[in-house]
């Protein structure tokens, strides 16, 4: 078992609890032992970065310090936005001694241990798309999605900026496809799988956001996808919950089920509904499960 400090972020704690429960249920099957982080806060979701950037850096340093204190070498995220925010802050702290010293001094003032031993921030997707995690996944989820056509949707901030993410080619990634196929499903290819779902501005500029959101859903629908899968709970929220708003703007009812990555692998690995919690989705996943059972 590989021990990782588990940072679930805001959504998996609140409106996307199903992401947390399915990740926890799946972790031991793919060789991960999750160490709970109790004292951590929100990473700022890019919003604190563009409101009070110095506070953003300190909040993330505090998260990294608590994660490093667990003794794990990896801080594992389940959200693209958390991944980018934490990796960006981590890179700045690790590569700038002066900056790190000032931040650590401030952390000490509020009673937080300094961030001294470096820790690496990795998304759950990266843990199971390569290496030992992938080998274990292939065994755990072997041919569990037979007959299902799955449209992978990456979400921006696990691919770009690639110099900070660096796991795979941002213009032709293959991790989700590899996982879908290892689970026995068929991965569909469509241009909008790398584009933005619009979530960051879905409240402040809904029309612009919906204009982005419609592209991946419509393309996946036209390809005949049974479901879409995403490693990001923010993409999940817009694809799943805001889908009903596309009915008004396009006149089309896509009725496209959206799965979290941990749920997709979870289904293939035989995780129970109590942990998958599909009832928490706005668009029903019933037809996907029915096709699988048929």
């Amino acid at each position, binding site marked *: 078992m590989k021990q990782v400090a588990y940072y679930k972020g805001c959504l998996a704690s609140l409106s996307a609890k199903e992401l947390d429960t399915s990740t926890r249920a799946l972790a031991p099957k793919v060789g991960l032992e999750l160490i709970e982080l109790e004292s*951590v806060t*929100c990473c700022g979701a890019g919003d604190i970065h563009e409101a009070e950037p110095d506070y953003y850096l300190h909040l993330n340093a505090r998260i990294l310090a608590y994660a490093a204190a667990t003794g794990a070498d990896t801080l594992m995220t389940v959200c693209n936005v958390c991944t980018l925010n934490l990796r960006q802050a981590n890179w700045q702290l690790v590569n700038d001694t002066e900056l790190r010293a000032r931040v650590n001094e401030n952390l000490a003032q509020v009673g937080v241990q300094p961030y001294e031993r470096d820790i690496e921030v990795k998304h759950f997707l990266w843990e199971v798309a390569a290496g030992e995690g992938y080998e274990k996944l292939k065994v755990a989820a072997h041919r569990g999605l037979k007959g299902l056509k799955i449209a992978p949707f990456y979400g921006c901030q696990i691919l770009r900026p690639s110099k900070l993410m660096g796991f795979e080619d941002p213009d032709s990634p293959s991790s989700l496809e590899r996982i879908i196929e290892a689970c026995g499903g068929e991965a569909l290819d469509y*241009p909008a799988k790398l584009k933005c779902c*619009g979530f960051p501005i879905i409240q402040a500029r809904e029309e*612009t956001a919906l204009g982005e959101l419609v592209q991946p859903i419509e393309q996946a629908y036209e390809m005949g996808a049974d479901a879409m899968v995403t490693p990001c709970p923010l993409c999940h929220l817009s694809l799943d919950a805001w889908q009903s708003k596309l009915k008004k703007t396009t006149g089309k009812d896509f009725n496209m089920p959206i799965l979290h990555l941990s749920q997709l692998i979870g289904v293939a690995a035989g995780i129970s509904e109590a942990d998958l919690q599909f009832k928490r989705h706005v668009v029903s996943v019933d037809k996907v499960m029915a096709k699988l059972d048929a």
Partner: protein
Amino acid sequence: MKVALKIWRSNSQTGERALREYEVDAPEWATLLDVLDLVKDRHDGSLAYRKSCRMTICGSCGMRMDGKTVLACRTRMYDIAEAGHIPVISAMGNMPVVKDLVTDMDSFWEKFKSVKPYVQPGYIEPPGGREHIISREQMSAIHKESLCINCGACVSECNAMESDPAFLGPHALAKAMRFVGDPRDSKRIDRLEEVSGHNGIHQCTRCYYCNERCPKGVDPRDAIAKLSAEAIKESIDSDMGAKHAKWFVTSAKTTGWLRETELVPKTQGVLASIKQAKFALELARHGKVPPPFPAHVAKNVKESRRLHGIVARQGRNGFAGIVQGEQAMAKLEHGHTGHSDRDPYGPGSFPRPYLPGEKREGAKA
């Protein structure tokens, strides 16, 4: 080497559009621009594309290769040709095509002009006709934004602009930051107000395509974040986007985690939220609207509250809060290791430039 290309040929006047394949003999060092020159010279003189400097200075030859915006002069063809791949070349996105690879950049320049891309001086002239000296630290704050060559690669891929063509976009906003951060400029507040308007910074959807594509390392998305942080520091925060961002700060210092249910009324106002009631009820039915009480509070949240106070007193918010990380971020551009033993001015390198006040070796005292 043999290089094959497919080029989307089109003519806006006749409406013709066709994908044509070409093959040329090119030297191994050839760039995409060299190959286009060979196609035009040897096969079809009617092929239209822009070019000038051929060395990533003029920003003329922006185009797409396999859907990805590049500068043709900066793209070597050797690996592609060796792999036997035949790339598809097309015009940039988010702009109408005039002919073949030439786009109509009028809207690009209109947006550029709208941010008043020039210094509007407001400093006090030093007496006796002396120079107005700016410190290196002050200028380095806008170093990245100053590198822009107006090529349009960022705009070509902007996801928000695809959805709303009125969005000012990464290029114009990075240019705005270049002057907001310029210590000689007198219109900082006016500029911040302008970019905080409906088509400004809060339309950015944070897809990071602009950072990914920029051939000069401008990182327009980061420039947009700098504008936002600076505007919020100056209390230019009436836009829903700014209220949204500020609610995350409030959440982090009160409960630690995002107070998700209150985010909509805090961003859109209570009246607009009521209009969304039907939608919200539908989400609530599936547990997507967590009850605000009891609040989901992080353990030891008082630490993050006190951190907020300390950080606020140290006065490094605003764009300076992002600039402070750039020295470390620059190491990403140079080989991902973060540590370089190589002295850029060491043996075998270009001579180090002389800084003002320094004595040249061998020069007369």
